[in-house]
């Protein structure tokens, strides 16, 4: 039997060790740079991998540091309004960008559409090979249609608009599928739900399809490009040379190539 004192000193030693380890991690983890050389990028979580890759490329080219914060656009907007700690904001939703702009936190003249996406219909890849021929919404036999919530989630709103445009005799394809819908909170959840059901199709963004290419089959593609991510410099970002450079770089051809690899489209004519 060990004495209490002995085990207590062990706990103490472990604690000291952890703190020391942590301190060394902090020391090596981030070389402190002056604030003017660190760009704080707040980006919608769906962009996380792509924006990170653009950021590392920018860091390598310029020597500046990029720091990220990834969350839902609503959360980021609330954070920017509560405390001005962001330099660049990429929102998946123009309403939240407007919310930040209305509160005077971004430089309005820099606000613009930066990234687009396209809706696609997908299904789980069947072991027996893929279907051929034109996908026919009106003859859809699948038991479930997984989409983002058409009332509240952008990807669901776009999906509804897409299907409403497709005519099936008297009614629209939307009317034809409306009793088979499984609405969800976001495109990633819709993707996961579609993959979990053997007899379902899902409507997600092209970038979601690209991320799961091995498991899903592309059934149909919308002709309309939707889901424009908006970008802007914040008021603090506007005063920072490095942030301006990053914002321009994020819209360059180099960044465009990275984005396209993740299944996004760049917005032309800016």
């Amino acid at each position: 039997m060990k004495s209490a004192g002995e085990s207590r000193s062990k706990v103490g030693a472990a604690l000291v060790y952890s703190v020391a380890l942590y301190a060394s991690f902090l020391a090596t983890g981030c070389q402190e740079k002056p604030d003017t050389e660190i760009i704080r990028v707040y980006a919608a979580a769906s962009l996380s991998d792509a924006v990170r890759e653009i950021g590392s490329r920018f860091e390598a080219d310029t020597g500046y540091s990029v720091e990220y914060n990834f969350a839902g656009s609503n959360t980021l907007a609330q954070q920017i309004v509560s405390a001005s700690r962001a330099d660049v904001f990429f929102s998946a939703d123009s309403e939240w960008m407007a919310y930040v702009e209305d509160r005077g936190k971004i430089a309005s003249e820099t606000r613009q559409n930066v990234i687009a996406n396209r809706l696609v219909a997908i299904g789980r890849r069947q072991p027996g090979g893929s279907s051929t021929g034109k996908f026919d919404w009106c003859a859809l036999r699948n038991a479930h249609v997984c989409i983002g919530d058409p009332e509240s989630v952008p990807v669901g709103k776009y999906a509804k608009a897409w299907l409403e445009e497709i005519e099936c005799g008297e009614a629209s394809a939307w009317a034809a599928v409306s009793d088979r819908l499984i609405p969800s909170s976001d495109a990633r959840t819709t993707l996961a739900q579609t993959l979990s059901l053997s007899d379902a199709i899902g409507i997600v963004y092209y970038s979601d399809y690209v991320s799961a290419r091995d498991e899903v089959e592309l059934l149909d593609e919308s002709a309309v490009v939707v889901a424009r991510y908006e970008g802007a410099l914040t008021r603090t970002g506007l005063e920072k040379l490095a942030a301006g450079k990053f914002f321009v770089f994020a819209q360059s051809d180099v960044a465009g190539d990275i984005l396209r690899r993740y299944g996004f489209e760049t917005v032309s004519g800016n």
Partner: protein
Amino acid sequence: MPTIYETIFSTLLWAALSIAVVAIPGVGVAYALARKEFAGKHVLSTLTTLPLVLPPTAVGYLLLRLFADNGWLGKERIGFDLGVLFSWKAVVVACSVMSFPIFVRAARVAFEEVNPRLESVARTLGAGPWRVFVSVTLPLATRGLVAATLLGFARALGEFGATIVLAGNIPGRTQTLSSALFSAQQGGNDDRANQLLIVALLVGFATVYTTERLARKRLNGEGGQS
């Protein structure tokens, strides 16, 4: 970009710090709820449980408003910057608030299980209230308190909703296991998401398993052995 080990390590450390912050006020509140009768006891009990039933993002927004530049604890109000927002301190604040109710509930049960007669015997032998608490109540409640600590720790480990709002999801600065998992999943990086999921499962299993073991021992009355 932090490695997966750094993320695990920071998450464990922040969860441990959170539970350290919670422990002392938590023991006080739990003891008061278990042993004392006072006005507003039910209100206090309800208030301490509130973060358990509110959506975590709502708690996060309340904390964000509180620490915002123009909030009650913001730099414009109190004259200096506490440096909480979007730093590791914000992670600890969010995790503490979210694990407080679970710690208090478990610790309260631990105190209630201590036989009050043992305390009164100590008092009749001349021990003061503090002495009774430290040398009788606390040792007898130890296992329950350790279980409460582990449960609170587990809650802090998995905390997501309040943390991402108050601390953000800043890799290398405030990113936790949960928010890294969220980023990987939302960004479509399934391999990384799966890796993180396995780690989260292992850490969660270890914590809950230990708690179960401690709780069993307590029920079987093996309190004296180790």
